[in-house]
């Protein structure tokens, strides 16, 4: 039985796709995560409050989400509510990450698929007269607006430190906020131009390949509300394949609503909802949104709905949904930066106690849950429920759809290799996180 293996690039981490074919028929399509560090094992016995330093190291791309989820899990266990100013700064922190991540995924990971290049760092200047700017430089500026937000809100832009149990270690000075605002203001029109170009190039791609990928109706999971998404996450929500809210539960009830299973072919586990394929990440949130609550993002959302309907299922729309969120995050960051952030009321004292806590954050890739059990001040058990894990079955289903399109009894169309890359990148999986 011929086995096709496709090592993956332009995603976070080490993974490959394995497709087994027999007599021109696709037998199986696996998404195989090939790295493992074992964070659930290695945090056993560490002092609980050290988690806020250790767990961001699960992933340098998603470190902000892990940092905040760790703090929230500990606050849940200790019964602490941080002051409003701290919550404001945490929202800004998560928006900074969303800007950085969506800009990276859209323009560094998936733009080359639209332009037929290996990397945006290898696009010749003015390769395309419609190109709105030097792509790599424009992208760097948009990303920087996001990383700088993480820096002012979190102390450093990778593995931030400012969120601690009880709040934030410090506020944001007026000067820092003003500088960050100027950067975000400059990045917003740039991001819109890059996104418009991206939408146009996606339309051309669709004309060329004839599809936007697997569009089978699916369940969606996210932890944001339906207007003005707050990425601090409150409850998990499920949308059914018709776009109707069908379930809602707190993080601690995760285990009774979703089924998690390990596999023997990958270091990543996977989840399902009552046996059904689920999808997390940008398209889940956009399908859930009634409005974004900011003008430009709402304009994009309206056009998205008019063009693709509701709920939208085709997988390349994950990428477009990411662009809407990029615009939203920039606009929302401007709103927060316009308010006072330099107050001293960023933190309250607390009394540590043993017990159990859940932290929930809507990371760029979907709902992230941290669950800790604390005994004698030390971590005795930790679970990290990673957004990518919710998408594994959806990725494999979409891979199968792509494989069946390009594999026939007579031949294997080499477009398959590109298709495999596009499918996986649409879900923007994070392998360091998924395997941790």
């Amino acid at each position, binding site marked *: 039985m011929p086995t096709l293996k496709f090592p993956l690039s332009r995603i976070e981490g080490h993974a490959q796709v394995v497709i087994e074919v027999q007599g021109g028929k696709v037998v199986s399509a696996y998404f195989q995560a090939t790295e493992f560090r074992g964070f659930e094992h290695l945090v056993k016995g560490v002092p609980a409050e050290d988690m806020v330093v250790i767990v961001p190291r699960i992933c340098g791309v998603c470190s902000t989400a892990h940092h905040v989820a760790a703090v929230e899990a500990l606050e849940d266990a200790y019964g602490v509510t941080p002051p409003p100013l701290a919550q404001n700064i945490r929202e800004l922190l998560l928006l900074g990450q969303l800007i950085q991540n969506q800009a990276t995924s859209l323009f560094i990971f998936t733009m080359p698929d639209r332009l037929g290049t290996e990397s945006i760092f290898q696009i010749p200047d003015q390769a395309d007269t419609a190109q709105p700017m030097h792509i790599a430089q424009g992208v760097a500026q948009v990303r920087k607006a996001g990383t700088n937000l993480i820096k002012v809100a979190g102390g450093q832009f*990778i593995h931030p430190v400012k969120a601690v149990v009880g709040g934030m270690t410090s506020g944001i000075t007026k000067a820092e906020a003003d500088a960050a605002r100027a950067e975000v203001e400059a990045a917003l029109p740039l991001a819109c131009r890059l996104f418009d170009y991206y939408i146009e190039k996606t339309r051309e791609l669709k004309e060329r390949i004839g599809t936007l990928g697997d569009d089978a109706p699916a369940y969606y999971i996210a932890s944001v509300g339906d207007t003005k998404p707050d990425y601090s996450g409150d409850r998990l929500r499920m949308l059914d394949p018709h776009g109707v809210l069908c379930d809602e539960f707190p993080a601690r009830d995760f285990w009774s609503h979703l089924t998690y299973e390990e596999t023997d072919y990958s270091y990543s586990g996977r989840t399902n909802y009552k046996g059904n394929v689920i999808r997390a990440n940008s398209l889940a949130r956009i399908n859930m949104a009634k409005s974004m609550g900011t003008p430009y993002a709402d304009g994009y959302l309206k056009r998205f709905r008019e063009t693709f309907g509701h709920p939208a299922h085709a997988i390349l729309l994950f990428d477009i949904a990411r662009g809407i969120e990029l615009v939203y995050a920039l606009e929302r960051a401007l709103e927060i930066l316009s308010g006072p952030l330099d107050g001293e009321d960023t933190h309250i004292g607390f009394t540590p106690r043993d017990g159990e806590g859940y932290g929930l954050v809507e990371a760029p890739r979907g709902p992230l849950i941290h669950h800790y059990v604390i005994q004698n001040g030390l971590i005795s058990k930790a679970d990290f429920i990673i957004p990518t894990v919710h998408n594994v079955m959806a990725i494999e289903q979409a891979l199968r759809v792509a494989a069946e399109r390009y594999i026939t009894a007579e031949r294997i169309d080499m477009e398959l290799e590109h298709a495999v890359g596009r499918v996986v990148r649409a879900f923007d999986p994070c392998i360091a996180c998924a395997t941790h």
Partner: protein
Amino acid sequence: MKTFAVLQLSGCAGCEMSLLEAGDWTKKYELTHLPLVISSHDIPDVEVLLISGGVRTDEDLFKLRRSVKKAQQVVAVGTCAISGGVASLGDREEVRALFTAEESRREVPRLLPKCHPIDTFVNVTFYLPGCPPTPELFMVALSGKNDFKSSKIVCAECGRKKVKEIRPQSLAGFSQGSVLTDICLIKQGFLCIGSSTRNGCLAPCPRAGFPCVGCRGPSDILMEKGKAAWLQSIQRIFETLTDIPAEEVNAGLRSPQLSLFLFQFSDYDGTARPVRPKEKMI
């Protein structure tokens, strides 16, 4: 243009994200391999090879040995590549037993008994410590010359005042309430180890109100002396600046698994490894 490539072993991609932020390299250097941002599956011959992540699996080891042959200079980037990093937390008997349970998975790379720094297996031209190293430091690493100048320790850069009148009685940590601006974190009862940590980062964490956890590793002076001397030097700082009982500081420093200090001590502890020369440390 000078060419460089990046080999990612088992790590978090934080080092690569930091490299991407150092936007200037696109004008000076040609990146030929980094699967995170380029579709390429093999490392070509290059002048500088940056290696991030630790050696966790047999596949890591295979890639490491194969790749260094293609490079004129090899830079060990980040704590994982230099000392095994956060994964060294798993270098304990009880955790190792848990790892063996993972070995039943088929078709994935086998796990090695522990996570190794890369210089266990290959020669390294320069070390670029930090978790992750700052974007500016990447530019130094790419230049191929270790001519970076900065103050010796993180403590010299944080700008917080060591007010004489304040002498904390205990290691209260964040439970006590807000962090005071402008006052030394040790003076507020935090276990900050900026006094023994190599500078170059310009102290972003203590500036933001979070004690230094030492991710850049030991300062030049302490690098060659070993763990006992480091712990002593930190103890002395606390004796000078605080009234916290020595036993309490000592217990904090040696807290379970040394988890907060794993960046400084993890791989230096109890191994026969030759000292890494400070001339090679950026």
